[in-house]
Structures are given as structure tokens and as C-alpha cells.
């Protein structure tokens, strides 16, 4: 998608538009060729009006060179009018709902006379009703001869809106079929593919007593009645699609976001966690999904490792540098972090090593309950295996791990139990050994009905 819209350059291959081979150099060029793109993460400027956003960079001008405001608003109005949609062109984007923003985004793409429109997960933030409205617009566009590429992981949408469907997996095309030929099961099979030969070190660990019990956690609009338990020595996998509420759950449990209702028990005692500080005091650790939220890039490796356990390096009110060095050295060795020295700034480490520093931080703080959010995202295969070995070490010592992961093989191989989430709710709890990729995907995509 990003190659097509000109954000990324392709390494090889040809793009042919209406019989002519083209070389798409940048997003601007893509626009000139009539390719419109609606991004998953909206690219609107909140502080500007709807019309300004649509015509950003191409404002109609008067002869004097100043902006022709009335024409700007009129053109924006006409654009919406074409589709029987009513969005006020003068309204500020920040006051719009998600669905309306999506419409503005589409209007922006259409304002350049598109021949091909790319939509990337356009309904991920929409309600059913809003989605239907969007589909109407798409059908309307089809009638006008615009080709639409619609990327979605909601399988039911494929049948509703598509004529042809192409399945991609791991950057490769699996197949293209006409929609009449396929049902959801076929699609899931195509998405799963065959097993890859990867090594996941997993040692059997006897489960100890219950470490954590979560009862009916709710956040309006994000989490719906989440309940689960975690035992000593257990790896609990949480699977689901992007936006299923997995990270929201982790953040809520760790005290970063407020919960609306629900109870949390640690080793049988009810606790209240209202800040990450509380969570750490209670023995929780949270490896964030995005390393950038978990590390301080301009600080040294040793400073990052001890960041969550500064109490351990305090002597008589001062920072004890020798203790800190020793601690950091220990974990650098234990996790084989490749660094030119303790003082190396974390921003200059590779992704895998950064991740290991982030892990070391929580091992250093002696967390008993660790939440790993996508622990292997963006790191190389070697580091991945090391991360799994480390997890094995931890559970052997009685740590309980909640592993959030989008990599199905990982979850299947490492987790003792797998919880599947879909749209903020738990849709299934599966056992290791009996669960299959098809099961997980089914519950993650269609919620198990």
C-alpha cells in the first residue's frame, strides 16, 4: 500500500496504470496519477477546518494571491453533496467524530479526481451504522468508475463490499479469488498458511499458586468485562487483532489508564492500582508495546536498567554509582546485551538490544508479574530466541508472564494458556497443545459467534 501511494519506494516490480507503466516517486506524484489513499491512522490536522484539510496545499486563490475562502468552502460542500453526506466544511476537525473524520479523509482523497482509491482498515474505528454509510459511498464510487482497494482484517466486510479478494501473508501473495468462491474458513486457512520452522524454547514448568486475578475490568468503549487469572510459573498468552483491546488491558492493569470498574487481586489480596508506581510496588512489570515508551533513549544503558528500581541504588540519600554499575553489568551479562559500555546511550543500540535493556529493567526491579506487550516486535530472529529463553528462565523462578503477541506461532508455542480478545472482550480461552491457529484466528476475527 505504501509503495503504491508513494510513501515507500519499491525495490523492483512494475506498476501499470491504465496500460501505462509508471514509476511512483513520492506521494505527490501518486496524487497526480490519480491514486488516492486513506490511511489507517488519520492524517488530518485537528486545528484546521474540514475544507482546509481537504484542500491542504491546494487552496483556491483569488487573482491577488490570497485564498479564495468562499470557493474553498463551496467546493468542499459540493464534494460532500455528491455522496449525500452532510459534513459542515467550516467545522474544525477536532470537533468531529471518528466516522466523520474518516469521511473527510475520503473526501480529501477524492478531491483530486482519483482513479484508484486505497483504503486501509477504514472501518477499524467505525460503528456498524457508520460502516454501512461508508460502504454506500464506496459503491457509489464504483459506479463512477473508481477502482477501490480495500484492506481489512474483518472478514465479513470482504463479502459485503468486495468483488475480488487477495490474501497476503508475511509480505507474500497467497492468492486472489473472487468473493463468490470463498467463505470465512477458506480465508482463514489462506491467512494461516503452513507452519514455519522456527525454534521456540519452551520448558515445562509446574504452576504454583495464583499470582494475579482480575475480575470484570471495564473501560467504557475500550474494555468489556475482562476477567483472568495468572499463576506462578505460567505464561498466559493474549492474542487478538490490532485494536482488540490487549494493550488497553495491559495499560489499565498497570495503572497507566483508569479503569471504570473491576477488581484486581494479587496473591489473593485485593489491591488498587492507580499509578505505575503502585503497580511496581506490587511486583508488576510492563514491557511496553512500543520500545519508545519504555526507554529513555538519551540515557545510558545502566541508567535505563535501574530506572524502575532506583531504590536499590540509593545509599544514604545519594545515587551509589558502584552499586548501579554492578547491577547493570550483571544484567548486561545475563541478557548478553551488546553495548560498547555501561555508559552507551540506549538510542544507539540495535532494536534487539534495546528490547533486552527494557527487559533487564523489569528483571532488575524483581517483578513477579510481568506483562510483555509484543516482546518480539521489530527484533531479529536471534534476539527473539534469546527473549524466549529468558522468559523460560523467569517462569522457572516463579514469575508469571502475560504475553501479548500478534505472532500466532509464538503464542501457540510459548503460552500455557491463550486468551483471545476481540473488540475489547475476551472471546475464548484456549489450552496449550490443543489450540490451533485456526481457533485463535476464528475467535479473534469474528468473536466466536
Amino acid at each position: 500500500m505504501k509503495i503504491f501511494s508513494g510513501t515507500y519506494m519499491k525495490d523492483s516490480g512494475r506498476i501499470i496504470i491504465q496500460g501505462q507503466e509508471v514509476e511512483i516517486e513520492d506521494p505527490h506524484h501518486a496524487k497526480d496519477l490519480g491514486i488516492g489513499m486513506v490511511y489507517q491512522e488519520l492524517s488530518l490536522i485537528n486545528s484546521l477546518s474540514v475544507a482546509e484539510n481537504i484542500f491542504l496545499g491546494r487552496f483556491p486563490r483569488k487573482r491577488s494571491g490570497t485564498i479564495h475562502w468562499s470557493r474553498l468552502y463551496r467546493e468542499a460542500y459540493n464534494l460532500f453533496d455528491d455522496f449525500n453526506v452532510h459534513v459542515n466544511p467550516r467545522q474544525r476537525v477536532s470537533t468531529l467524530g471518528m466516522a466523520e473524520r474518516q469521511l473527510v479523509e475520503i473526501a480529501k482523497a477524492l478531491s483530486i479526481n482519483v482513479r484508484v482509491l486505497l483504503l486501509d482498515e477504514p472501518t477499524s474505528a467505525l460503528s456498524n451504522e457508520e460502516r454501512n454509510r461508508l460502504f454506500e459511498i464506496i459503491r457509489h464510487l464504483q459506479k463512477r468508475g473508481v477502482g477501490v482497494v480495500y484492506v481489512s482484517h474483518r472478514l465479513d466486510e470482504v463479502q459485503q463490499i468486495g468483488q475480488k479478494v487477495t490474501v497476503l501473508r508475511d509480505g507474500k501473495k497467497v492468492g486472489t479469488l473472487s468473493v463468490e468462491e470463498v467463505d470465512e474458513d477458506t480465508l482463514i486457512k489462506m491467512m494461516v498458511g503452513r507452519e514455519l520452522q522456527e525454534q521456540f524454547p519452551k520448558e515445562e514448568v509446574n504452576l504454583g499458586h495464583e499470582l494475579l486475578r482480575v475480575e470484570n475490568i471495564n473501560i467504557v468503549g475500550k474494555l468489556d468485562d475482562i476477567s483472568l487469572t495468572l499463576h506462578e510459573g505460567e505464561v498466559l498468552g493474549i492474542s487478538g487483532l490490532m485494536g482488540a483491546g490487549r494493550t488497553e488491558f495491559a495499560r489499565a492493569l498497570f495503572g497507566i489508564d483508569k479503569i471504570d470498574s473491576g477488581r484486581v487481586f494479587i496473591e489473593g489480596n485485593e489491591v488498587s492500582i492507580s499509578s505505575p508506581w503502585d503497580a511496581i510496588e506490587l511486583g508488576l512489570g510492563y514491557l511496553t508495546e512500543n520500545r519508545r515508551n519504555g526507554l529513555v533513549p538519551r540515557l545510558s544503558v545502566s541508567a535505563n536498567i535501574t530506572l524502575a528500581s532506583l531504590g536499590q541504588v540509593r545509599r544514604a540519600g545519594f545515587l551509589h554509582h558502584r552499586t548501579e554499575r554492578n547491577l547493570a553489568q550483571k544484567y548486561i551479562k545475563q541478557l548478553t546485551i551488546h553495548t560498547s559500555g555501561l555508559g552507551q546511550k540506549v538510542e544507539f543500540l540495535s532494536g534487539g538490544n534495546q528490547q533486552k535493556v527494557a527487559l533487564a529493567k523489569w528483571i532488575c526491579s524483581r517483578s513477579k508479574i510481568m506483562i510483555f506487550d509484543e516482546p518480539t516486535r521489530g527484533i531479529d530472529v536471534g534476539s527473539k530466541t534469546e527473549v524466549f529463553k529468558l522468559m523460560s528462565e523467569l517462569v522457572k523462578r516463579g514469575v508469571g508472564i502475560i504475553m501479548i503477541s500478534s505472532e500466532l506461532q509464538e503464542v501457540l508455542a510459548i503460552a500455557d494458556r491463550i486468551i483471545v480478545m476481540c473488540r475489547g472482550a475476551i472471546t475464548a480461552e484456549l489450552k496449550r497443545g490443543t489450540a490451533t491457529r485456526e481457533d485463535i484466528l476464528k475467535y479473534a476475527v469474528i468473536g466466536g459467534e
Partner: protein
Amino acid sequence: MQRLKKERKAPYEKPSIGIGMQKGFGLQNIGWATLLRGGPIIALLLLVVYFSLASPHFATISNLKNIGEQNAYLIILAVGQTMVIIGAGIDLSVGAVMAVSASVMAVLATQNVTILGMSVGPVHASVAMIIGLLVGALAGAVNGIVIAKGRIPDFVATLGMMEAARGVALLVTGGLPIPSHFTATELKGYLPEAIIWTGGKYFLGIPTGPLIALVVVVIGWLILSQTILGRSMYAVGGNKEASRVSGLKVDRIKISIYIIMGMMGAVAGIVLTGRMNSANALMATGVELKCIAAVVIGGTNLFGGEGTVVGSLIGAVIMGVLGNGLNILNVSAFWQRVVIGLVIMAVVVFDQWRRRRFGT
């Protein structure tokens, strides 16, 4: 959907050790390797060499003392501002806080005032100074609380304090210099000796102003490199979200920074009052930008998370040496400002280039 990664790449795999915070926060921070690395110390040396060659009056003991005395307050402010900027903030109220704490101190030390119906003062110099410090701390605390709890940008909150504190200073002094022969009672228009000592006397042959500044530098260095609080300042300034997730109490740290800054502002105010033998509500106008310039010249990252007190000391001295040297060379005051502005830009451009080039 993959996001475009915007990562800074190190041109060299192994940046040499000994730069800034690279070797931890220990004594290495003030190692020569550190200092020679940076543009600031080079700029300072060049300036000193140039002025020494250009004028026989520059490199004399009395002139160097003079530079120290003139800039003691600036060094003190720069130390506080270093912490603020490392914590990814900025404090525009320092000049006003200086004025209000100095004014309160001077009024209490020389006048009989009525507070809540009680007749107070003139109080002992030490009491007046302590109250001055508390006023500074209070102003800082208000800054910090408004920023942290009110979730307001540092710039805006301290801009408000800049105006408000000036106003309070005017109210306290009635717009008059303190002491003035209109209002001073027993002391007949003179500040107590102890206050004058802080800015205008000698201790073991060293002028007291620079000596106090040096003590503040050491305290600032201790806090930043030797305490948990200091480490937390770097962490919060470097990545607030990560600090929060790592269990740091971000709000408290932010408030602490501004309280320390407020107290340092008060110390600077006392020293300047001692040097001028007088306090007034409009003293130290424009110093906030001067001390920010000193901090930035000293290599502290305006986006937070990086910087040293020693760098800021050098930055402040550069500003002082420039002003003094240009005076000695008889450069007009108008041209001086142009030159100082250009030097600030040149040093920072050089420093940015060095960071990119050497990846540190």
C-alpha cells in the same frame, strides 16, 4: 501498518567514552575529555586568548574578580535553569522571582511592616534572607504545581509567574528602591552588613558573590549527578511516558525542579542585592533569557534529557567574558548585543554539528 521510523543513526558504532553522561554520572563528567569535546570550552578559551592579546587590562586579577562579581547571579540562575531544561521545561519567571524574593528580604530587613495587624521588623538579616529563600521556593512551587497538576505548558505557566511575581515585588516595595531614605527606619537607609556581604565582600581573598555561585554549582552538580532526584530529572526530560511507566512520580519530580529553581532564583536575588546595596522591584529584568542562553551555550539539550551543570557554568562565563571584554575594547553597547547574539548562535550551531558528527 508499519510506521516510518525516524531514528537517529550513529555514524560510528562506538562513540568514545567520556562525553557528557556517557560514562554514567560520576566524576568523569567534569573530566577534561568531556570539556575539550564541547564547543563551549573552546569558545571560552578563544575568547580569553583574544581579549588578553587585544587589551592589557583584560587578564588582570582585578578584572577577573570583576567578571566573577558581575556574573555570579547569572551562574546561580543558570544552574537552576539547567535542571529545569534537563527536565524538558523552561522557566521564564526567574528574573521576577529574583526581584520579588530580594524585595521581600530587603523590606523585612530595613522596614517596620504591618502583617495581619501585627507590627513586624525590621527583622534580623538572617531571618530576612531565609524568608527571601522561602518566597523563591513558594514561587517555584506554584510554577511546578500549575505545570504538573494543571497540565499547562511550562512556557505559559512561568510566563504568568513572570508577570505576577513582578507585580508582587512592586506591591511589596511600593515601587521604591529598598532601602530608601523615605521608608528605612532604624537602619537609616542601609541594608544589614550580612546581606551586603553576600554580594560585595571578600572571603579569604575571594569575592563572596562568585564564591556563593561556586557553592551553588557544586550543589547543582551533586543533585544532578549524585542523587536519585537528579537521575529522575534526566529520565523525565528524556522520556516522560517511559519514566511514568517505570514508576517515577513525574509530577513530584517536576515540582521539585521548580522549587529548586525558585530557591536558586532567591539566592541570585540576594547576591545581586548585596552587590548593588539595594533591592528594587524592577531589578534583573531580562535575565531569564540570558540564563537560558548560558544553559544552551553550555550544551544542554533544549528538548530535555541531556545537559550538565558544568556546561552551563561555562556558558554563563562565556556570556560574562564577552560583555566584559567588549567593554574593555570600547565596543559600543549596541554592537555588544549584536556580537553576543551572534556568538550564541555560532556556539549552538557548532555544538549541534558536533553532536551529529560524533553522534553523542
